[in-house]
Structure formats: structure tokens, C-alpha cells
């Protein structure tokens, strides 16, 4: 029987080559009964937004360890707006300094999960976010 499933895009924008964190999160979301689309490493903001449209995801998670988070989050959000898809919420994870948080919040990143976050927190956050919309 058909049923509604949450579809989550986990994406790795930019040039860093470590996706252990992204994979752990993807696995945890899978185990929570969600459908997780994983893009693979070194994606451009353009390819992430295009994937989000084609896969019709409920939420996008970006994993960034390179330090280019301010640029990359902004770019993805701008492109989503351009496509009329700014209703898709974005959250992030990776190495992101406290000082950059206010800026990221301001441009519309809903939540940042740093090192040491439990996967249960991410799961319950996603459930809460996608329930609202």
C-alpha cells in the first residue's frame, strides 16, 4: 500500500573529501524509516539544487568541513529561491565555528549540527521540521 515517506537529501558541497559524517547521518535517517538520497562528494550548489527538485525532497542537509560554509550555504539558498523552491528547509553539519552561526541563521539555515551531536537529535529535529510544513 502506498504511504507518505519523508525524503531527505544529504549533500556534500565543495571540495572537502570526507563523508564519514554524512554517511553516518544518512544511515541514521534510513534506520528512522526515511528515504535518503545521497549525492556523493564534491557537489556544486547547482547540482544540489537540481537534485532536490528532481527528487522532490522534504529537507536538505549539507555537510561541510572545508570552511567554505558561508559561501556554500548562501549559494544553495539563493539558487533554491531562483527556482521558487525556498520552501525546502536546509540544515547543516560539519566543522562550523560559533562565530559564523548568526550569519548562517540570518540567511535562512534552520539549524547547524556540530561534532558530537547524537543522531537521535537530528532525527527528531527533521521529524519536527517536516511536520510543520
Amino acid at each position: 500500500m502506498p504511504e507518505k515517506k519523508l525524503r531527505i537529501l544529504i549533500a556534500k558541497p565543495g571540495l572537502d573529501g570526507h563523508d564519514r559524517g554524512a554517511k553516518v547521518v544518512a544511515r541514521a535517517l534510513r534506520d528512522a524509516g526515511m528515504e535518503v538520497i545521497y549525492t556523493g562528494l564534491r557537489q556544486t550548489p547547482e547540482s544540489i539544487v537540481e537534485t532536490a527538485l528532481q527528487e522532490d525532497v522534504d529537507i536538505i542537509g549539507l555537510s561541510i568541513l572545508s570552511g567554505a560554509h558561508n559561501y556554500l550555504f548562501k549559494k544553495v539558498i539563493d539558487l533554491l529561491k531562483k527556482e521558487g523552491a525556498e520552501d525546502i528547509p536546509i540544515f547543516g553539519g560539519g566543522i562550523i565555528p560559533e562565530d559564523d552561526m548568526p550569519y548562517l541563521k540570518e540567511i535562512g539555515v534552520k539549524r547547524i549540527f556540530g561534532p558530537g551531536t547524537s543522531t537521535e537529535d537530528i532525527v527528531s529535529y527533521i521529524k519536527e521540521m517536516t511536520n510543520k510544513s
Partner: protein
Amino acid sequence: MSSFDELIKSMISGDRRALGKIITLMENDSSSSAYIIPRIHNLTGNAHIVGITGPPGSGKSSIVDKLVSCYRKDGLKVGVIAIDPTSPFTGGAILGDRIRMKQHYTDRDVFIRSMATRGNLGGLSEATGNTIKALDAFGKDVIIIETVGAGQVEVDIVKVADTVIVVSVPSMGDSVQTLKAGIMEIGDIFAVNKADIEGVEKCILEIRMMLELSEKKEGWIQPIIKTYGNKDEGANKLYEAIKEHNKYLIESGHNEKKRIIRGKTELVNILQNLFIRNLYKTISEEEMEELAKKIANREKDPYMIIEELIPRLKKFV
């Protein structure tokens, strides 16, 4: 339903997000399909539908990636449906086939949709057929379907595709494997992937022997093609073979026959689903449980119970 009409209109005029949303609607809810399909059915039937199947890790996604490049070189618009398994325990899924197709992510004329099986057996998901229709109505010239990693009985692809490619890899077992019924019977084209590893000639020989023993497909000799993962070598030959098969289907009239069989499958599937939904509306979960108990403690047998239920079930046909 007016928001549905708007979505359908946007989709037909080429809006990628609308197409994405329509697929989701049909995947989540069969009453959405019952609204959408009648409004797009007349726009479908133009695309060539290519199915790719084979065991997990045999390189299906890499082959799809290469084929997409070939089609794009010829200026054709491509839709891809990539299916991965749903966990039987949690209902979740990791959809990772598109990782192999990165080079096409930003090509506006390539639309890739990942789908989870959601409990469907047979190698496809329940909504695959309707998703093919949506991509067809959207204007794709070719739609490539990658099944889940298939074992021996995941053969539903033959019911939806015009051309079926079975991917094998060397050293997967002895010649008895190719004698068995199931997946090896459904190929119109065979690709032996990773053909640079040992055992490739033996693998080809075994497939050829199997084909010689099996019933001939009228006027079509199934080619066996060596492919090499993500290298171009082989992929071009495979592409030529697909085009050749399409030509054969059209010239021989088999295309028409396949479409009629497909129409029948669609009807039976929809009726089956309708029946099961209505069944659960007529007989509650609790009653079903009670009846099951009677079967378990040998008070009644299943046929006896069905005999009693039939008068109640008749009214919803």
C-alpha cells in the same frame, strides 16, 4: 483538486519541480494516481523504455551513466528511474544510484528520480509504471529504468520496458546458473560488465549456450556485449544494440504487442490494489484476526471462510 490541475499543467509545460512533485504524489497515494493518470495518459506512449537489471554491484548505475551520455550526444532527452531497496525492518532506504550519474546532475534535459521499492517485490516499486508515464508526458525521448540489484526472480522489468538489458559479471557461478529460469530469460540484450576481469570469455560462452538452448525470440538474436564499467569502450556498442532492438520492435510489430500486454498488466494491477483496499474496508483488521485464529486452531479451513465472505465482497466489484 485544482492544485493538482495546476501541477499537471506546469509539468506538461516543462516545470521540473512540478514533475518531481507529481511523482511524489503518485508514490504516496493511489487516489492521486487515479486523478493524474487520466489527465496525462494521452500524452504518453512516445518514449522508448529501456530496462537495466542484474545482480547488486554488477555496475548497472555506471552503465546507465554511460548510456545517458550516448543519448545526450544524439540530442535526445532522457529520464532515469533508479530503484533501490527499502529496509524490511525500518521502512527506510538509502538511494545512492545517482552518485554514479554525477556528470548529468545539472543537465536540464536529464531527469533522474530515485525510488525505493517500499515493500514491492519483483525489482520495481509500485509507482514505477506511473512514474514512467509522468516522464513520458513530460517529453522524454527515452526512459531508462534501473531495477534493484536483482537475484533470480525480480523480473517485473519485462512488463514495463520495451528493451531489457541483463547485466552479468564474470565469475558469478557455473553454467547451471544460466540454465535456471527467471532473470536470464528476460534479456533482449546481455551486457557482460567488468569485462577486463578474469573469466569473461567463459561467462559469454555460458550465456551463448543458454540462448542457443532457449526458445528463439522471433527475428531477434540477443547480442552479448562486453562493457567496462565507467569506460566508454563497450558502452557505445551497447547503445547501438539498444537502437537496433528498438528498430526491430517497430518493424516487426512487436512494439504493439508489448504495449497491449502492458495495458493488461496495468489493468490487473489497478484492480488488484482496488480489491485489496476495499477488502480492508469491508473486513476489519479485528475480524480478519478472528478468522485467522479459526484457521490456526483448525476450526475452519481458509476456503470455507472465503465461501462465507464472498457475498459481502461481491458488492464492491
